[in-house]
């Protein structure tokens, strides 16, 4: 399936960004077509999170542009981008520990205009994650890692995003839970949400994705259809320095 046939939802064009003085990413160009899962993989410190932060408006790029649905959105604030349809689920889950599961989800609906729409969305998300419905009133800080990840993803879904940015959803999770999270991501994709998935776990990411970019030292080292990358020895090299 060629990605040029689909509408490009998100496009980063030669984006560079800094953290203080450290150059985190340099000349990164990527596109996320509608209806697909795009993976960004690479070792830690390669600049994957930085790329997402630029896409969601948290970080202003020092060079290059960001386009969403064809519109130039470089430098727009996160609130605007959320309303446009981008949701960013942070690394380490970032749930609000002293709020219940339900309140965590509701806080994801900050930009949703009407009460009715929020209710509808809440029902939708709880249906998608029955485990969360069970734990609706529980403080999010007391949940297990996998459950917290569900809360974080569910919270991101509350704003009815067209594009979901997932930052290392399986970090620190046991292999079995990793599989469950992978399943979750599949279901979300099936529901029509496009996904940009940042992962350190290359195999899991390449299994899920249609297309993938390999970041190393802040630059794109390699890109291509996920299937091809899976068998490429170059990926191995980027990770293990062989």
């Amino acid at each position, binding site marked *: 399936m060629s990605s040029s046939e689909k509408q490009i939802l998100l496009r980063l064009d030669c984006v560079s960004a800094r953290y203080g003085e450290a*150059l985190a990413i340099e000349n990164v160009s990527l596109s996320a077509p509608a209806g697909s899962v795009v993976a960004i993989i690479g070792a830690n*410190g390669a600049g994957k999170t930085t790329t997402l932060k630029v896409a969601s408006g948290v970080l202003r790029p020092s060079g290059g542009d960001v386009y969403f649905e064809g519109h130039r959105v470089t430098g727009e604030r996160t609130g605007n981008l959320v309303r446009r349809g981008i949701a960013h689920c942070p690394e380490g889950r970032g749930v609000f520990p002293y709020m219940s599961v339900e309140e965590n989800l509701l806080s994801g609906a900050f930009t949703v205009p009407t009460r009715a729409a929020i209710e509808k969305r809440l029902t939708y998300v709880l249906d998608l994650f029955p485990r969360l419905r069970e734990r609706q009133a529980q403080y999010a800080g007391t949940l297990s890692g996998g459950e917290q990840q569900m809360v974080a993803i569910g919270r991101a879904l509350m704003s009815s995003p067209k594009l979901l940015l997932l930052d290392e959803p399986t*970090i*620190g999770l046991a292999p079995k839970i990793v599989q469950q999270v992978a399943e979750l991501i599949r279901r979300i994709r099936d529901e029509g949400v496009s996904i940009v998935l940042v992962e*350190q776990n*290359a*195999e899991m990411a390449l299994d899920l994705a249609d297309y993938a970019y390999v970041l190393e030292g802040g630059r794109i080292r390699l890109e291509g259809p996920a299937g091809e990358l899976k068998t490429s020895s170059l990926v191995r090299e980027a990770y293990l320095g*062989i």
Partner: protein
Amino acid sequence: MNKVALQPAAAMPARLSWAGLAVLLALLVAVPSFLGDYLVHVLILTLFAIVLGVSYRLLLTADAASFCHGTFYGIGGYTVAILTVKAGFSFWSAFPVAGLTAGLAAVIIGYPALRTRGPYFFLMTFGFLMVMESIFANFDKLTGGFAGIANIPPPTGVSGVRAFYYFTLAFAVLSVALFWAIDRSRWGLELRALGDSNDLAQAAGISRFRNMILAFVLGAVFAGLTGGIYASYITFVAPQSFNFWVSVYILTYAVIGGSRQFSGVIVGAIYITLLPIVFNWSQNLVALFVAASIVVIMMLFPEGIVGTLVRWNRERQSSSRPGGLDDERPFSPVAAAKQQRDLSNARPLLEVSGLDKHFGGLHATKSVSFMIREGETLGLIGPNGAGKTTLFNLISGFIRPDTGTVELDGVALVGKTPDRIARFGLTRTFQASAVFDKLTVQENLQAANAAGRGSDAEHATLVDEVLELVGLNAVRDVQAGSLPFGTKKLVGLAVALATRPRLLCLDEPVTGLTGKEVERFVDVLRRLQARGDLAILLVEHRMPVIMNVCDRVIVLSFGEIVSQGTPKQVQADPIVHEVYLG
């Protein structure tokens, strides 16, 4: 090459012009002869404020703002009052006691308060202020309650405003000289390092608690002495003389004038005390003036009066030069094959056994055991979240393990504070705050502490050696915070080396560095390895670096070691592939 505007020594105290100082002193001595009594009185009060300011500033340089300095002032005042009026002592015998009681009070409140940080420390000292104010107002028998104590006699030999002026002037000059000397001394440097980056300072062998309690107590002693003089000058003390606002004003001197430069607090004290009184405004107008000044200065000149002037001066002078490192040395590219060193006969230096740590329900470190030999370089790799940083924190003393032992040369490290561990020979670097931003590169290394540190001269030789080794001679006097990122990380390495480590623990030293910078860093590591007496523990994600620099590698996943061996062995191990790639 990046063009960067480098900041020359901004943190260094202003150079003294001895001639200028002599003129100033002469002026101050001559002044009473041609000023009326009221103005001399004002000068005396200003001198009090100056001593309070410089004595307060000592602890402030370590980034700890207390809120009870006025209380120590009050304790000193009441001590003199009580001893002279109620117990018949002479001023000269009561005077040193004033300092001692204030110092004692500082010990009593300092021990619990200095265990807390930031706002809690502020509030603890604030609490002490309020409690003491209550005691002053209510311990009628001793303190005279609200009416206070009157008829405090002047010191024998000192009578009249002018005599008091000279006495106070002498005291103030000595105090200022003392605190100025401390500021330029090694202790002052350590306090500034603590204030700049607490964790880094401890990792560089600087003791936090001991340094801070000493600064707190010394400051309190001088506040107490000042209070004693105040009491005998004004001849009465009451709770109102030492209330909440006194401490507020002292804090304001420092922040308005600029807490970074020594002269800042003096300028602030003069500004707030002298100007309003000289113009003889009503009390409300004075308060309005002071308050408006505070607001305006905080908004426009957040570094304070002196701080801003220094910055303007620096900006006028600064030039753009390339990010100059000593870069004429050729260095071997990273990819060159590393000679396999035979270290099997080297004796074990670090032995970690059964190290275990839980964070609530998370089992972060699972019974980790490994060993590093003298002169060996061990790499530590593993996916994000595997527990590498936790392991680092455990062996360097920043976190305590639940069980397990860490021994360096047979000496147990668990339970020792990080600074003791650093002085003992295990030094670690930090990913994020690698350097003391506000100190120059040279000061960064000077601040580092080591066991068997020797004299200042010996340490200075070591500093020179390290700067030469790492290639930082060209940026010696540059403020570390303004260096390019890659150079900063090299300075961080240099600071660690200045502690004379036997085991150097590097936490992601090349993360965020460009290719060229990585090569330079690796070159330095190679030179260190060539010396043969330094063991290195290296956490990194850049595989080429690990493979080419390390003798052995251990792989951490979910808190436990899943593989170890030579780089080649680890690279070929299928478990490692799984752990990383999934």
